[in-house]
């Protein structure tokens, strides 16, 4: 996340809108992600896992008190709505690198 934030100017320069999605409520996103952590991209709340389920990313029982959450995953979607790149990590501790995303982003028309 921090890496994405650091590369945000370059991403928006490349015409890419960055959006983070989790089960967290709008209040938690506002208070912790925007105000406390100082992130400046879009945070969307999916407490009922509607989008998370549609993208088949439910990680059952891994949240607070055994709640379902999203597994980490990244998608780059072009204006026609087509997935152009994705990263489905095999290990929680391995994530997409912003420079890698930027490279792909620049190759989009």
């Amino acid at each position, binding site marked *: *996340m921090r890496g*994405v934030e650091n590369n945000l100017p370059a*991403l928006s*320069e*490349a*015409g*890419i*809108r*960055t*959006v*983070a*999605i*989790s089960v*967290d409520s*709008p209040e*938690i*996103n506002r208070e*912790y*992600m925007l105000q406390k952590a100082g992130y400046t991209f*879009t*945070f*969307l709340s*999916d407490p009922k896992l*509607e*989008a998370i389920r*549609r*993208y*088949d990313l*439910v*990680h*059952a029982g891994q*949240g*607070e008190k055994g709640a379902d*959450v*999203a*597994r*980490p*995953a*990244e*998608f780059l*979607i*072009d*204006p026609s*709505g*087509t*997935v*152009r790149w*994705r990263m*489905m*990590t*095999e*290990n*929680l*501790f*391995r*994530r997409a*690198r912003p420079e890698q*995303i930027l490279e792909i*982003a620049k190759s989009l*028309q």
Partner: protein
Amino acid sequence: MKRLNWKIWAGLVLSLVAGLSYEFVFIRWPITRDFPWVNLILFAAAMVLLFLGLRRAFKPDKRIVAKIFSSLAAALGVLLLAGFLFAIFVFGRWLPASAAAPQVGQKAPEFTLTDPNNKPVTLRQLLTEPVNNKPPKGVLLIFYRGYW
């Protein structure tokens, strides 16, 4: 005068540092996060120290207390290493298969979610509203586990 078995203590402290420094330090940079090589090197050094300390404590002239304490310290160090390996290489890989997740070339499923101001936002909106005063070239969706 009997000398302190510093190797066993240094080994134990280094095991602690090796384990904890991943979460607090080395997770910050992709190069030390994606594969925890710094922590594994620290653990390797810790194991060598523990082994040397243990060997010293088990020399015939050493007291039984020294043997018990160094065995406990060594066991704790090994336990820390085992816990670390488990967390990174076993727990870290417990992820759902997500076989039906949209593939490259497929349409991304539409959604309507709530932004921090409690306003509904659709994927279509995200794909059409300007970025940098220009039509967007793409949207990067980052799904994550959440803050809690």
